[in-house]
């Protein structure tokens, strides 16, 4: 098979299981067990670490305050790509107080900047309604902009189509490697809501883009954790 070329294989009763990784299994029992285990872990983490996202709505000041500037602040921006350091799970937890799980998503090719064909990489992770959490579907049109990141200082990025942005610090860990605290831009575009309900808020990988492309893979799970209540720590992104 030449590089870049596809493959076709005859599939039989005997070898079907070897193709399992290439086929959708969303209704499959193993997938259900996997999700159930992840949900159980999330519940345990939430129980042990009180989260501001548990149950009631948040009451952040200045939730919808907008400053009339062209671009979001780019403070603390550096040009270098963060270096990876291998740490244990215990070390990661020791790096900062991590709160409850906010949201999870099974990453697709677009999220990890592996675009198809002539499509350019998006440069971002789309905050979609990918997973239900706490047995409630996430309304992606408001959950991230208002509930999750509502207390940050949002700026008008563009007026037509209207788009807001804010810069937020995330502690990023990919496959056990900690990439430290990275400031990333989160954008919210309400006009996206009319387009098949896809997404309206996105996380732009910025200087992490090369890291994401090389370290993360489609099919991996991204978990977004809030800072622990009362702490001054960043949000946490874990990909594994």
């Amino acid at each position, binding site marked *: 098979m030449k590089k870049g070329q596809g493959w076709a*294989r005859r599939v039989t*009763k005997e070898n079907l299981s070897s193709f399992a990784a290439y086929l959708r299994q969303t209704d499959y029992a193993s997938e259900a067990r996997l999700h159930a285990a992840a949900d159980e872990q999330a519940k345990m983490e939430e129980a042990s670490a009180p989260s501001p996202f548990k149950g009631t709505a948040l009451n952040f000041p200045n939730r919808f305050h907008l400053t009339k500037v062209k671009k979001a602040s780019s403070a603390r921006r550096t040009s270098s790509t963060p270096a990876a350091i291998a740490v244990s799970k215990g070390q990661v937890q020791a790096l900062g107080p991590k709160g409850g799980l906010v949201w999870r998503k099974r990453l697709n090719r677009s999220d990890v900047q592996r675009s198809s064909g002539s499509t350019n990489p998006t440069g971002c992770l789309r905050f979609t309604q990918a997973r239900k959490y706490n047995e409630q579907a996430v309304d992606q049109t408001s959950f991230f902009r208002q509930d999750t990141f509502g207390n940050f200082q949002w700026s008008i990025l563009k007026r037509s189509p209207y788009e807001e942005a804010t810069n937020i610090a995330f502690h990023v860990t990919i496959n056990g490697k900690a990439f430290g605290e990275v400031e990333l831009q989160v954008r919210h575009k309400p006009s996206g809501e009319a387009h098949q309900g896809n997404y309206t808020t996105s996380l732009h990988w910025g200087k992490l883009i090369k890291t994401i492309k090389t370290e993360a893979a489609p099919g991996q799970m991204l978990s977004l954790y809030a800072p622990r209540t009362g702490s001054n720590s960043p949000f946490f992104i874990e990909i594994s």
Partner: protein
Amino acid sequence: MNGVFCISLEGKSHYPHSQMRTDVELMFLPYAGATQETLVDVLIREFASGKWSSFSAAVAFARESGNYRELLVSLTDFARGGGTIEMTFGANRFAEGEGSDYRAIEALLRELGDFPNVHLYLYEQPDRTFHPKLYLFASQTHALLIIGSSNWTQGGFQRNVEANVLLRLDLSDREQKGAYDRTVDVFHTYWREIQ
């Protein structure tokens, strides 16, 4: 012709100084007119017609919902009667949640996997989505080629808004045979990429 909306297409073929005349049927789902015939109806009817000796399909996505019981019975009867079946489905695991269902393939193999004249294939290319929707019935003298938008799903066969072209080819006609051969070549191209 049993179709919903039938026209006779007369146009220039890819052969110079000639014209290809063939029967063309357009099927717009769900606007199937008085007959309310859907693509799955066409497939079942053609399998049962006794006219065809082979069936090939190259379809992006197969879902369990597309494995209608009547369709599986028709496929099985066709295979049992000696008809050759070759079907290729996309294994586009990471294409935004698309791709064929494990269970759909499993069910097809359960019904058809023991027939030596039935071959199922999966196609995967990391940076390109396998996206054709081709269905081809053939005999020594005629062929029915269906090209359109319908996947092997309940939506594609029956419920979605879909558009398909049904081309009935007379293989005794040199040009129509040429079109048929080109289509068969396309199918074989997928499989040639195997090795």
